[in-house]
């Protein structure tokens, strides 16, 4: 209870700070700060206040919000109480969205690089000049290297679908989502076990084990709020994390597990549940395949053995396994929404999926669910086929089971650098920043320097934009009309949301939908984009009029009713039509059909393992420069345990060197017991190269500079925890 109170106070402090800053900026000096950034500087009808529905875009969650608008100026963003997914709340980052809109650092017009790449010399272009130039480069590269010679990469955004459609109409198979720098190994593991990526019903869960995920800081709605509510209702939370995160601080039990050993823990939990017959025999018989193989397989993984690997006492592993089983089926291993960490990341996540299956929590209240969903219609793209194209993606075959529609940033970059199996010489990025989020920044720079042309569409001059040849300004989420977006959340809160422009787009910014339409016209592909956003939305809503009505009236469409008990008697989308404890598909591909534990590489002497994570103030590199959020965190630090710091003579706050085989940075040390002595940590999103991000230029260090690029062998997802660093005094 005390823990809950702390969190609430903390949240109120955020909101108070956000609100106070927004108010002081808006009220104290509206003309200088706000009107100066709008085309129409006339002040009229000061009392006219509109409330406009929208969906937040400060992270991927799309929480419902209501913008308070006065004379086309957004004064404040409030949570939409009708948005069940966000449980009627808006976090500190959501409140700070107003400063993404009114950010003096925003890109204002198209820019063409004039100096060397990354030198920061630019020439202003008109939109016609910029689009003509981009179209010319797309045409030239397509003709010279085939259409697959152009790479497209779009972040999580409601308009990213148009970048994908453009790439397809243009003819390139090389499209990467940001997710190969994020969580594909989790999706891979659960899809291969359950045939689907289930959603955790945290709200109704009685016992949650959270390996690595940091849900009270790395906010996921509704899981973050639901976990708090569940804990108020006496749910138990056990956190395994080498860092003492806020989630660890509020948990019932925290184990600073040795990094890279989560699979050992869960195989031992499985061993206890099976050997003590703590599972639901009917469920196992009816819903799973490969149980006997699993029983044999986990015999070797005893809690005593796991203690040596994980640094977690055997008696605790046994007790936790028994407690979990007792709470089942309202018990779970939280699947996580964190980035991949090790080269066997998919297999680590498979071990989570398997323990969940042993708990029989599929489709159960407080377990793993696949909620009902709405399927908006779509404009079907009849893309042409280019006979001269190569057979497949440039990264095809570089991972054992890559998602063809997601690709792998790491493998694509390697293939481009090698020039094999064919050259890729063009790159378009939209609202993604691999220069900050893709491990081994120097390699990304090297790759960019092999390209003939690179263009970036973004709101601000990110590090990726900084390296581009052509930079095109996009509006923020508050200035544009988006398509509908269906979302799956957990209990009774899946639905559909959309956005209309809350205020007119500022400067010369244009949405990426408009950009690809204009490029398509210039490339003789206009017929594939011969529709407006209104047309697109009408098509989406054609068969779901109730959604249109709800969105108009409430700003969101919620699916109500229980999300569990929906799949009784229905087969799973797997080869065996059951939950695959033993994967015959893996076996046929030469992959271990059940997770086989291998100890993580030992940390060399005088080295530390560096791990990644997040706090509640920032969404990686997308928000560190935000005027309000920057007030909460002005730079990042390297977390170092006091024992390790003392051995190296490093003091708290001292600037130190951090070095790996990928690169070297300087950063201030944060000497803290909140990490293990063998593990160091830093936030993402600092140490920028772009000096157009004026708040954070020259502050902190870039983690992508020192992370080595390793990949999860199965999915091709970047593996973020495989890097060892040395630290030293300057």
């Amino acid at each position, binding site marked *: 209870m005390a823990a809950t109170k702390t969190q609430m106070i903390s949240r109120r402090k955020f909101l108070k700070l956000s609100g106070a800053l927004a108010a002081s900026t808006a009220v104290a000096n509206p003309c200088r700060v706000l009107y100066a950034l709008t085309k129409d500087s006339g002040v009229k009808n000061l009392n006219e206040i509109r409330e406009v529905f929208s969906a937040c875009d400060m992270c991927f969650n799309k929480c419902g919000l209501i913008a308070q608008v006065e004379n086309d100026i957004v004064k404040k963003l409030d949570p939409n109480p009708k948005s069940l997914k966000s449980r009627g709340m808006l976090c500190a980052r959501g409140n700070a969205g107003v400063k993404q809109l009114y950010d003096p650092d925003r890109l204002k017009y198209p820019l063409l690089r004039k100096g060397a790449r990354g030198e920061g010399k630019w020439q202003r272009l008109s939109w016609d000049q910029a689009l003509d130039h981009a179209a010319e480069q797309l045409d030239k590269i397509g003709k010279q290297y085939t259409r697959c010679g152009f790479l497209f990469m779009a972040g999580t955004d409601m308009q990213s679908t148009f970048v994908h*459609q453009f790439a397809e109409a243009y003819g390139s198979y090389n499209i990467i989502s940001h997710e190969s720098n994020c969580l594909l190994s989790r999706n891979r593991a659960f899809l291969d076990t359950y045939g689907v990526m289930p959603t955790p019903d945290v709200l109704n869960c009685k016992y949650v084990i959270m390996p690595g995920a940091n849900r009270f800081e790395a906010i996921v709605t509704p899981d973050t709020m639901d976990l708090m509510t569940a804990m108020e209702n006496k749910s138990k939370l056990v956190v395994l994390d080498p860092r003492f995160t806020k989630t660890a601080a509020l948990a019932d039990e925290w184990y600073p597990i040795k990094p890279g050993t989560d699979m050992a823990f869960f195989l031992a939990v499985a061993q206890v549940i099976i050997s003590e017959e703590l599972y639901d025999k009917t469920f196992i018989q009816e819903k799973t395949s490969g149980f006997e193989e699993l029983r044999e397989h986990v015999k070797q993984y005893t809690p005593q053995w796991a203690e040596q690997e994980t640094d977690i006492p055997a008696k605790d592993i046994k007790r936790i396994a028994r407690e979990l089983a007792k709470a089942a089926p309202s018990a779970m291993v939280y699947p996580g929404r964190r980035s991949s960490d090790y080269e066997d990341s998919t297999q680590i996540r498979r071990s989570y999926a398997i323990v969940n299956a042993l708990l029989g929590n599929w489709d159960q209240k407080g377990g793993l669910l696949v909620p009902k969903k709405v*399927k908006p219609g779509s404009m079907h793209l009849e893309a042409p086929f280019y006979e001269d194209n190569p*057979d497949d993606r440039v990264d095809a075959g570089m991972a054992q089971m890559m998602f*063809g*529609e997601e690709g792998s940033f790491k493998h694509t970059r390697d293939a481009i650098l090698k020039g094999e199996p064919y050259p890729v010489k063009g790159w378009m990025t939209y609202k993604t920043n691999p220069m900050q989020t893709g491990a081994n920044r120097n390699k990304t720079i090297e790759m960019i320097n092999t390209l003939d042309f690179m263009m970036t569409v973004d709101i601000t001059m990110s590090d990726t934009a900084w390296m581009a040849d052509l930079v095109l300004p996009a509006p923020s989420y508050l200035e544009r009309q988006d398509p509908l977006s269906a979302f799956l959340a957990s209990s009774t809160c899946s639905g559909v949301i959309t956005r209309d422009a809350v205020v007119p787009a500022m400067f010369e910014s244009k949405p990426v939908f408009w950009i690809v339409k204009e490029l398509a016209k210039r490339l003789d592909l206009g017929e594939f984009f011969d529709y407006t956003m209104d047309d697109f939305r009408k098509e989406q809503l054609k068969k779901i009029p109730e959604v249109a009505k709800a969105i108009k009236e409430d700003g969101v469409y919620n699916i109500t009713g229980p999300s569990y008990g929906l799949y009784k008697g229905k087969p799973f*989308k797997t080869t065996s*039509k059951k939950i695959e404890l033993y994967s015959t*598909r893996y076996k046929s591909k030469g992959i271990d059909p059940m997770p086989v534990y291998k100890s993580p590489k030992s940390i060399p002497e005088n080295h530390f393992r560096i791990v990644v994570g997040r706090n509640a103030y920032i969404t990686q590199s997308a928000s560190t420069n935000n005027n309000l959020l920057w007030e909460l965190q002005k730079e990042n630090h390297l977390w170092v345990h006091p024992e390790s710091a003392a051995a190296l003579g490093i003091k708290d706050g001292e600037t130190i060197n951090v070095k790996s085989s990928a690169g070297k940075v300087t950063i201030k040390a944060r000497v803290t017991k909140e990490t293990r002595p063998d593990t160091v940590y830093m936030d993402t999103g600092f140490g920028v190269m772009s000096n157009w991000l004026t708040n954070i230029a020259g502050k902190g260090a870039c983690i992508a500079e020192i992370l080595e690029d390793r990949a999860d062998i199965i999915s091709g997802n970047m593996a973020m925890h495989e890097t060892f660093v040395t630290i030293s005094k300057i």
Partner: protein
Amino acid sequence: MVKKLSALGMILVFMAVFIGVAIAEGKGNSRKGKYLFRKSCRTCHTDGAAAKDLSPVSKTQAEWVKTFEALDTLQCKEEWANLSEQDSLDIYSYLHGHAFDSPSPAKCK
């Protein structure tokens, strides 16, 4: 007429055998298959058109195998007979490779 039907039957039987062998050897071009599926199949197999809406995730991999082994039983068998063996195989590769229970189920677009 009988001759015509028997020729059609032979073409489809031959195609089924060819596809069966080619499937085993993994020779289809899934990328081209996607284009051909849209061009040749989706004109009818879409919402509001003559046939049931169809996409790779409409069937499991095993069901697609069965479908392609029995093209001569489909209502649209004449359309199939007009496609080349390679085109049919490419369509199969796309549908099978992105089936309901495949490693990369097709996304709705």
